[in-house]
């Protein structure tokens, strides 16, 4: 679930926050949540309800909904959210339609 991230921070001294990902603490850069999870090496963000295929951020501008995560019980676009201290984030619960 957590791998070495392909992404590198240009300013590693940037401010950090601690969020929960899948019930575990994760220290990430403050700011955009999708970017924070990417740089932390989180992949995938979710599995599709149709075929359970792994997905992650695609458009980063709120159009594609591929970065959906569950925050406080509601599915939301990670790319439209700012990471906040103590935020509980998880993969959306999927009820497979098949």
């Amino acid at each position, binding site marked *: 679930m957590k791998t070495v991230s*392909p*992404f590198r921070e*240009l300013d590693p001294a940037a401010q950090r926050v601690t969020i929960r990902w899948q019930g575990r603490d994760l220290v990430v850069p403050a700011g955009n949540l999708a970017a924070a999870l990417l740089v932390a090496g989180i992949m995938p963000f979710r599995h599709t309800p149709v075929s359970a*295929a792994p997905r992650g*951020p695609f458009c980063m501008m709120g*159009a*594609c*909904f591929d970065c959906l995560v569950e925050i406080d019980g509601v599915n939301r676009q990670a790319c439209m959210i700012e990471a906040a201290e103590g935020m509980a984030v998880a993969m959306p619960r999927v009820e497979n339609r098949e």
Partner: protein
Amino acid sequence: MTAADLVIIGAGPAGMAAARTAADAGLSVLLLDEQPRPGGQIYRDVERVAPVRGALLGEDYTAGLPLARGLDGDRITRVPGATVWSIENGTRVAWTAEGRVRQAAGRRLLLATGALERPMPLPGWTLHGVMTAGAGQILLKQSGIVSGNAVLVGAGPLLYLVAAQMARAGSPPRALVETQTPRDLSAAFRHGSGALRGWRLMLKGIGLLAELRRAGVPRHRAARSIAIEGTGRAEAVCFQSGGRRHRVTCDTVYLHHGVVPNTQASRAIGVEHRWNAGQHAFEPVTDADGRTSLRTVFAAGDGAGIGGAKAAELAGRVAALAIARDLGAIDDTALAAATRPLRHALARERAPRAFIDAAYPPFAEALLPADDTIICRCEEVTAGAIRGFARLGCLGPNQAKAFGRVGMGPCQGRSCGLTVSAILARENGRTPEETGYFRIRPPLKPVTLGELAALTAADENEIDRRR
């Protein structure tokens, strides 16, 4: 419910410029934007980021600073983080911000909703690690993160710009896989005058290519049969170029073959749209002021037809002045005087567009993808399935929903709409206009039942107060 002379949706170049111009003319402006800070996608978060990464991102980005700073002032009410999900009766808007639903009624509405990346369905484009080039640039701009092992695929000035910005950030892409062919370029030069008037853009392009050469980025030209391989995530880009098959390993792929107007809001209101054959996209029909087929609704910027950030800014100002005249804030003489230089500048800015559109056409394999390729990312519907619907008599995109849920997932067709229309048009031997586009219905973005219930309660309180 809030009231304003002008409600603007979108705080990119068109929306920001329109807000300032309308406020200067004496109108009260409500500016709704989905992002926490103004700038749109091109100037994303420019006030915060320009001092930190302005040099790396270049002056095309920092040019947004004066626009964002121009939003300060009495007559402009800004609502950041506002997700607009309903527009009724032309100018009545509902949105969610910070988990609460709000509504506003404007005397005029300006849609400044910008562009979306043109969908680029290729085999493997749904794998984790595949993103749009715009997404890669947003990650670099807003969050200061860059992939160290990326391949860029497609065509267009943005592809070169993102590659050059990555090189400046110390992580040049592994390769550029370019779909442009020598024939595209020679065809573009038939738009001779446009090419000449676009010489500044050409020089900029040459400068970017020189940067990429110095950074040692390999360029693969006229690439064909492009596929992204990987198990669960992107691992390599495979393609045909220069007479042989290539496989470039990577963990990030950025796709781009142009941008298209984001018409979700204009479609939902029901204004007329037309097919722009040169740009291979639908756009709302507008007059020279940006007025749509609904008298109270205007559209400006890339959302009304792709023209770039400078053109968007100018079109935003033109629309704001026309609205100010509509509402009696300025007279015809003032309107003519203020608008004339803007129209000249707009014509100059748009002159090279036909050349650019012809020089960097969309990638044919992604306009009409192979049968196995997923085109609807949400519902995982393939191009072959759409062709199957056509064989069963399906003529249009709305009918296609009933055949196989295409376009019915959370993105509401943003990622597949143009591809569905293109495939059905081709299979049925009809034009894009005849084929049409998805009917877009509210909510434009998901809204929770709790948020809706709170809205009803607030409305009832208001009714009680009036009694």
